[in-house]
């Protein structure tokens, strides 16, 4: 190996050794690409009502519809091609997962690092609040907030953030607290640098590895939580169904044996969540100094 100097190449070389993790990562990338280019790869725009025909509704996989092409995964009650609906649904699920993950990461990391840096009363107040919240199940919090705020993308993301920021805060706090006691931070504090610089330049970069791990897992959790809320009828509006909403729409038809409306979106959802979790596991193992060779 000639250029293995950068931390990223070293990280990647180690990652590459776990074949399952590489497979999982390629699945995640593939699904993200499918979601991103949903409008190019789907045979149909499932949100355009003019495209849909009720003649085609609830048809089994392999049915050739009025559009003249084959519905490989069948159609849903509105006559949507399920494959297209899954691509578009993936887009919404990933969007929500990323947005919720990113916002909770920012809020949680800020709170946790501030608590560790400032200490005293502020630390007590923030961490008591976070601990209290961690003792309530996330699903219940999200449920309550969605019920209070009503339906919509922003409301849903706020609910997910409120349910999840505490995990980031706890992680950031733990890491920052350990770093705060080390000499290099003490030294930085002793210099005339402002607190803002010390936090941003010295404390934050050293707290990122555990935060990245939590972020991967939490994005998977956001996607799963969003699907659960949508399934309970508290998610996004029906016009732009996420994967959870697609599953929910198909549920009543399952009893009559039309399994595909619920099952295929669910399979897509699970592949995505499990793949993200496997990648997250591998990243965590690589960051864990106890497992270092």
């Amino acid at each position, binding site marked *: 190996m000639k250029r293995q100097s950068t931390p990223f190449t070293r990280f990647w070389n180690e990652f590459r050794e776990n074949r399952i993790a590489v497979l999982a990562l390629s699945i995640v990338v593939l699904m993200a690409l499918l979601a991103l280019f949903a409008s190019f790869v789907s045979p149909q725009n499932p949100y355009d009502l003019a495209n849909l025909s009720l003649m085609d509704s609830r048809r089994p996989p392999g049915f050739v519809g009025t559009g003249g092409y084959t519905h490989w995964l069948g159609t849903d009650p509105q006559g949507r091609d399920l494959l297209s609906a899954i691509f578009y649904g993936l887009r919404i699920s990933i969007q929500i997962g990323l947005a919720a993950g990113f916002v909770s990461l920012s809020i949680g990391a800020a709170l946790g690092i501030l608590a560790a840096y400032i200490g005293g009363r502020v630390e007590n107040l923030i961490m008591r609040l976070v601990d209290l919240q961690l003792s*309530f199940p996330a699903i219940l919090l999200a449920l*309550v907030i969605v*019920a*209070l705020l*009503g339906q919509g993308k922003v409301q849903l993301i706020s609910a997910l953030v409120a349910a999840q920021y505490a995990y980031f805060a706890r992680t950031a706090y733990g890491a920052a607290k350990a770093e705060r006691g080390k000499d290099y931070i003490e030294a930085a504090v002793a210099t005339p640098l402002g607190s803002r610089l010390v936090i941003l330049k010295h404390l934050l970069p050293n707290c990122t590895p555990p935060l990245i791990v939590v972020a991967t897992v939490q994005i998977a959790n956001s996607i799963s939580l969003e699907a659960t809320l949508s399934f309970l009828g508290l998610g996004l509006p029906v016009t732009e169904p996420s994967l959870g909403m697609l599953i929910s729409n198909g549920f009543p038809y399952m009893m009559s044996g039309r399994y595909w409306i619920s099952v295929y979106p669910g399979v897509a959802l699970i592949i995505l969540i499990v793949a993200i979790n496997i990648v997250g596991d591998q990243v965590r193992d690589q960051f864990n100094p106890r497992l270092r060779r």
Partner: protein
Amino acid sequence: MLGFIIQRFLQAIGVMAVMSLIVFSGVYAIGNPIDIVIPPEATQDLRDEVIRRLGLDRPLYEQYFIFLVNLLRGDLGRSFVYNIPVLELIGGRLPATLELVLISVFSASVIGVSLGIYAGYRPESWTAKTIMAASVLGFSVPSFWVGLILILTFAVNLGWLPAGGRGATIDIWGVAWSFPTLDGLSHIILPAINLALFKLAMMIRLARAGTREIMLTDTIKFARAAGLSEITILRQHLLKLISIPIITVFGLELGSTLAFAVVTETIFSWPGVGKLIIDSIAVLDRPVMVAYLILVAFLFVTINFVIDLTFALIDPRVRRGAAS
């Protein structure tokens, strides 16, 4: 120690007060329940009369104050939809939820601990590896999806078990229970499996980690040297040693399982508290929503309070940390 108890108790009361304020103001800030309670063809006089009777014409803070006073008297109001006291409504649904939760947590613990001990006892066997891989699935697959697949497989395709409802019940001390009847039992199997899977995965991991640790200790070496059979060692010594963290988690999980029951009950139309709250959110039945949230908050605050006290009893550092 007394100071610690008082401090934590005051904190718990503070949390409850804040929760009640948030829940109340949040719940009362959304939607207009009048449209649901009163039929559209009602006269204006009737509307005014109903609004007055429900106390919806008063300012919010007054409604909150009345609510708080009533709460302290144990009166959580009447459901807008069913027009019976909320406590009675929730109380009537509680046995169904409790039955489901207890059966799931109990069976998850028994099966999970056995599988976990095996996986920790023979970590290299392929059975153990299968168990661990399955437990990863149990963690990451959303539980509503598992419920759907259970219904599809066992109710729709195989037709072995019913897809929803509670089945025949038997009254014991005036409360209806499903588990004593064969029909009720067949209704409870699928939702119980659904609710138990996540806990099962967790119990497996806990028991496995504990077993792997304990099997390396001198206790086990001496027990083997004394000529005890492996089964006796596992049953008499190992099980006792790994049970402390498991029991702690068992207590913690009872609460969160009650919350997760919301999803399972909705899928299987199980007439418990979780189904009630989802239905109430859908029709904006405010008193039921508020009462449920307050009760859940109360449950969690109590559990946390008890856990804090237990830890303080066991570990003097916790007490001193609170005093300083």
